[in-house]
């Protein structure tokens, strides 16, 4: 095992795959000479040259469109859009083009691209640079969407993403890029649609993903001291979704708290809650709780980020509301 940063894990996955296939290229502004706005492609320009690590103009539609057109015609592509907020600039290429061709053309050609982008706040980036935009993609058939929380998951999921013959939205997290943790040294990949129990427990299931996994783990460690056993289930993959693991865990604990950084209202937590209510209803001892951001754009001052975004205290409060006496249904 090696201890590497989350960004280095992604970088290794890209390098390993690019070494195997000369028709795989990376494109985006700053991916080349600059090494990536979040250093995801450091050194790759020198390794692979300007055609395969392509510095693009600031033209998101053109970048994704170029990736899609190349993928339809014998190449594969990774497109780097540094801030996931900027995906708004190229939603047509993702949703109307990439997601639809295999279906519209009845399998004549597929679109093997990875759109690699960075979710989230906690970098004091301000309202246009801090959003968690996963739901922009999770309701579009034809796309797959993954959200790694650790270096190990990031590398494994990026490998699978590059190898997947479909368009994959790879959602890193900007505040996780510098997180260091253990990553296997051998070649490995992590399949989509498989959640991961990051901390086993019996009293409450916390279903979460991306940066919130770490806050949930921190809360789980604290509550363990009081004898409250929290299971933290890291989804890792939103589409496809590991419903089985969600249901299995809730059937064990009977209590569910869903945590994501995106606003609670209209967030992916609603989807998870509906799945639980539909398929694990009898196991529930208490209502399903969601913890997400409050309903406002996220301004740069950390005092306001901390007010609006879900905190350890919010997660703890939600868990306690389900385990305290009177909260459960017998």
């Amino acid at each position, binding site marked *: 095992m090696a201890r590497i940063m989350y960004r280095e894990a992604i970088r290794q996955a890209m390098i390993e795959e690019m070494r195997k296939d000369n028709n795989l290229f990376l494109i985006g502004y700053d991916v080349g000479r600059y090494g990536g706005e979040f250093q995801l492609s450091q050194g790759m320009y020198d390794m692979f040259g300007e055609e395969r690590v392509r510095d693009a103009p600031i033209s998101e539609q053109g970048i994704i469109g170029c990736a899609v057109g190349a993928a339809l*015609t014998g190449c594969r592509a990774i497109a780097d859009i540094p801030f996931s907020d900027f995906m708004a600039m190229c939603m047509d*290429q993702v949703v109307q083009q990439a997601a639809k061709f295999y279906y519209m053309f009845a399998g004549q050609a597929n679109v093997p691209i990875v759109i690699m982008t960075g979710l989230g706040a906690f970098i004091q980036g301000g309202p246009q640079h801090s959003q968690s935009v996963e739901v922009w993609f999770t309701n579009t058939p034809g796309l797959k969407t993954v959200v790694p929380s650790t270096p190990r998951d990031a590398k494994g999921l990026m490998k699978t993403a590059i190898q997947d013959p479909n368009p994959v939205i790879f959602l890193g997290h900007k505040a996780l890029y510098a997180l260091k943790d253990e990553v296997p040294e051998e070649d490995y990949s992590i399949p989509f649609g498989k959640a991961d129990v990051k901390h086993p427990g019996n009293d409450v299931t916390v279903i979460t993903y991306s940066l919130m996994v770490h806050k949930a783990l921190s809360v789980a460690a604290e509550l363990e001291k009081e004898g409250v056993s929290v299971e933290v289930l890291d989804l890792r993959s939103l589409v496809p979704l590991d419903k089985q693991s969600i249901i299995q865990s809730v059937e064990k604990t009977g209590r569910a708290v869903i945590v994501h950084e995106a606003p609670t209202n209209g967030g992916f937590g609603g989807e998870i809650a509906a799945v639980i209510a539909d398929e694990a209803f009898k196991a529930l001892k208490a209502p399903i709780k969601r913890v997400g951001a409050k309903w406002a754009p996220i301004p740069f001052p950390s005092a306001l980020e901390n007010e609006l975004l879900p905190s350890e205290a919010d997660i703890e409060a939600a868990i306690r509301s389900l385990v305290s006496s009177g909260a459960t249904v017998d």
Partner: protein
Amino acid sequence: MKSLLQYDKGLVRQMYEGMLRIRIFEETQSRVFRAGEQEGFTHLSIGQEAIPTGVCLNLNRNDFISSTHRGHHHMIAKGGDLKKMMAELYGRKTGQCMGRSGSMHIADISIGMLGANGIVGDSNPLAVGAAYSSKLRKSNQVAVSFFGDGASNQGTFNESLNMAASWDLPVVFVIENNMMSCGVRTADVCKALMFLGDRAAGYGMPGFNIDGNDVVEVYDTVKEAVARARRGEGPSLLNCMTTRLHPHFEGDKDMRTKDEIKEQTRRDAIANFEARMVKARLIDENEMKSTRQRIQALVDEAVDFARNSPRVGPEDAMKFVYAE
């Protein structure tokens, strides 16, 4: 206007029959569609035949074209199978896209036709990508992007032309300028309409403003553009003035004035080409008649094939969402 005698006789015939194949297919399609034999919408290319005919006579089977919501003439000019096309329009399983894409998304990747595209302007980045792929794989393939004057005002036009020029990509951008953006007269919303080819200079590539209803002028201009692209000298922009004779979609309001109709008739690509062929003694009335009959028979055969093919069913709905 050059004399047709300067061209190989076979090529002249290909130009003529290429345009006729489109015209007769589209007029037949118009009839069967208006008779209620197909579902959905259809956007016909009647009047715009010369452009893809002139373009595709310069392309190999494995060269790429990207297209628009009005893409039948692109498919036909690129060598699309008429039976499979008609079956596709009829929503039958024997269509190129197994009947599910219909008129607006008709595609045949095996002949480099990257699909009619329902989003105005999206043929451009797609062609840029195909050209990028060609360059990376060193395959010497060329990509042609067909789009309209309406699409030239999309952001994708800006991004695509800049990228293609910056990286010397082997792509030819072809504007089918029929001066209509859906029901809007583009001249009212686009000051540069009559000389859109001049935008090329702003991106750092050669640009042309030509008569898109003169199949020979299209052929000649594209020949040079394709040669340039294959030599690695990068993209070109061609603004081809043409005429759309039917409304935006079949069944839509006809916005043309009497004068416009008169002008369109005067500029008819096929009638004018026939006159040139006759003048050069390359064809006579009988041959023109028999050629039309022969092509009509082929199209009628396609309609029969479509009518007799199995329809798509519910069992097809969930297929091809994801590739394995």
